[in-house]
């Protein structure tokens, strides 16, 4: 599970993430939405241990990312929007490498990779160097390598970038299956359709705060809209912006 407790991140005078608290239980698919510069990526970077929070705590499966980093990272997988891959390795070598980083032995790597590689149609590319692969294929390699160690928590930043509709579907199905088996999924995205279709709960960030959290229905009720999530999202973010403006004037 994921626990964020009063998480704050300051960049000089700017408060990029302001007192964010959130618990995503085991097996939940959580979608993090928000306009540009809302603080989504900064939150994810603190959660994955890329940066230290200015205040607060982030926990993965009960382990504090800052004080027990290795225990937390063993249970975590993270795929950013433009993942790094060693461009002169083949996907086969890259998958073996990431598996070995997680201390997996050869039979385990072999067994876990087999299903994923076939499912994401990577078999024809296994022996080609990564620099010659398309953006979408690279993205699939990154996703497969992240899922290889069967993480308890999977964090994805804009996971559908570069994926064709077929492989986007494959990814959605895989994430749903894994979530059903107990993996916690946190997806940050601007594609509202993913949140609408997949998420158990949705969080909307605005100006560094987690403005609202709830199921689609709860968000609709709160925004007073009905229909597509887009209307709910626009209504809630607009409401949040107006509220802040009024608070600033009053202050």
């Amino acid at each position, binding site marked *: 599970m994921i626990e964020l407790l009063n998480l704050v*991140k*300051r*960049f*000089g*005078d*700017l408060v990029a993430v302001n007192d964010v608290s959130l618990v995503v239980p085991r097996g939940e698919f959580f979608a993090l939405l928000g306009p540009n510069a809302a603080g989504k990526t900064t939150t994810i*970077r603190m959660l*994955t*241990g*890329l*940066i*230290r929070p*200015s205040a607060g705590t982030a926990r993965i499966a009960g382990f504090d990312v800052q004080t027990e*980093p*290795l225990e937390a*990272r*063993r249970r*975590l997988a*993270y795929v*950013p929007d433009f*993942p*790094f891959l*060693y*461009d*002169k*390795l*083949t996907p*086969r*070598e890259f*998958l*073996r*490498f*990431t598996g*070995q*980083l*997680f*201390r*997996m*032995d*050869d039979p385990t*790597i*072999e067994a876990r*990779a*087999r299903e994923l*590689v*076939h499912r994401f149609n*990577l*078999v*024809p*590319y*296994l*022996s080609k*160097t990564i620099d010659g692969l398309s953006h979408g294929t690279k993205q699939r390699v990154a996703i497969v390598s992240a899922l290889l160690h069967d993480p308890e928590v999977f964090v994805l930043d804009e996971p559908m970038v570069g994926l064709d509709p077929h492989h986007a579907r494959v990814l959605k199905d895989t994430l749903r299956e894994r979530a059903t088996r107990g993996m916690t999924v946190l997806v940050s995205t601007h594609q509202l359709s993913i949140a609408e279709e997949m998420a158990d709960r949705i969080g909307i960030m605005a100006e560094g705060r987690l403005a609202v959290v709830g199921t689609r229905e709860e968000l609709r009720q709160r925004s007073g809209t009905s229909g597509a999530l887009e209307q709910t999202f626009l209504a809630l973010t607009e409401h949040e912006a107006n509220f802040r403006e009024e608070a600033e004037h009053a202050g």
Partner: protein
Amino acid sequence: MPAEPESAPLAAPGMLATAAEPSIPGPFRLLLQVNLLQVWRKVSGLRQQSPLLTVLIGLFLIGYAALAFTLFHKGLRFAGGFPGLGPVLLERMLFLLFACLFALLLLSNLIISYTNLFRNREVFFLLPQPVPPQVIFRWKFLESTLLASWAFLFLIAPLLSAYGLTREAAWHFYPATAVFIALFIVLPAVAGAWVAVATARFLDRRTFQVAALSVAAALVGISLFYFRPDAVTDEELETRVLVVLDRLLVKTRFAQYPLLPSYWLSAGVQGWADGARTAAMFFGAVLLSHVLFFGGLMFTRMGDFFYAGVSAVQSRASLLGRWGWLGKAWRRRGPDRWDLRPGFGERLLGRVPGLPADVRALILKDARMFWRDTTQWGQTLVLFGLLTVYFMNLRHFSQQLTNPFWIVIVSYLNLGACSLNLATLTTRFVYPQFSLEGKRLWIVGMAPLGLPRVMLTKFAMTTTVSLALTGSLILLSCRMLQLGWDRTLYHTLSVVVMAFTLNGLATGTGVLYPNLKEDNPGRIVSGFGGTFCLVLSFLYIVASVLLLAVGSPWAGTGQVRPGLTIACWLSFALLSALLGWLPMQLARQRVRVFET
């Protein structure tokens, strides 16, 4: 596409296949394996991609090593041959060289470590993995040391070979020196990495900024004082050579400060060449103990500092954030103010008659990108700054040059140095321009400007900047050497022609061998076209300087022969036209094809 066997998608053996191994390699060993495999693939890929490039690089390396060895050997024999003074001069030169190289290695390690530790995508990939920050730091430290030191090794290998030969050292001098060098390079790497981590962590702190600037200012002040020119009269040179030499050697005494690692290296190498092996081994042991202690600290104790540094770099808002009044002034300038009025540069260019708006926009865009890219102007500043300092100091040197032969030699060497500097910049910055534009082709390529005009504009702009830089430097060199107006004009015209040629060559080959996939200029330059451009530029400069010196219409290097002079000038003009005009013509044809 060939289908893989269904049963075992990852089972094919390779460097990473460890089926036979019962244990899983540790993360450091895995990183080493993966990166070695990457390097091997890059090298073999280069060989397969272009055999010509491999041959070219091979020839260039061998040629450099042979030329450097010959020059070092001749130079050392010349210096060592001074009656009574030879051994002292050789000793001092070795100490001085390693002290200067130590400072350069320190700087190089600092810059490369900072980039490699805090701006590298591999680090951001590894941090969320179950790899301790200490292991990531250890790997990056090793990588930075190799990246920062390979040029040093390449530079000193011919020198130390020549030194051993001059000193008639025994065969074991060479492997022993290799061990000394291997130990030595670790120490500036340790210092560089440590300063890089401290810089990353504390750069936005006021105390750190004030301390860093104060130390830098103090170093500059002390250097200016310590190396201030010492006037020597003709009479002193004639009658009191030893006193003058002693005064000169005093200035180099800093290199013999016994706590400098370069001192331990120089003393060790020299001791071994002299046959004083026990003393040499003592210095080797001093080096080894420091390497073990500081290297041990780097390998085991830097993980937390490194992680704090990464986080600090990623969390930094502004370097001047702690200076309230500066921050306010910056905000007043209003980077986020809604204002689309033309800036100063645009208004200035607007006053240039006959400059179309689209060309002006392109020039302004390139100028702004150059100005905002610290690497570009930083390297230009260092290269031409060093040359300016050297030329400025010629005024002290030229007073002692009474023989016109040396004046002429120095003036042509200056022409060569200036052109080589220019060639470095044209290859590094002008060559990748067109390839970089490829990524932005949706803006510039789609505009009604047309690619041939884009190319010509870039050529005109870079040539203008090059002319301003090299022309000023050559004028300065001639002034300091007190050359007459006719010779000054000769050198200036020569460098003008060379600036046109070098820019034409870089622009032309940049279009002929584009790399439109890459957005890193360093990688674009390291391909076939960039190497080809660099080698051609280098050969052109050597040939041109020789032709201009041999064809000099003034006596000084021998008897003037008008026929020879004209032949040399014609050859220079022909060579310049061939290497400057031809690539541009071919490139113009190529961009027309691009557009159709």
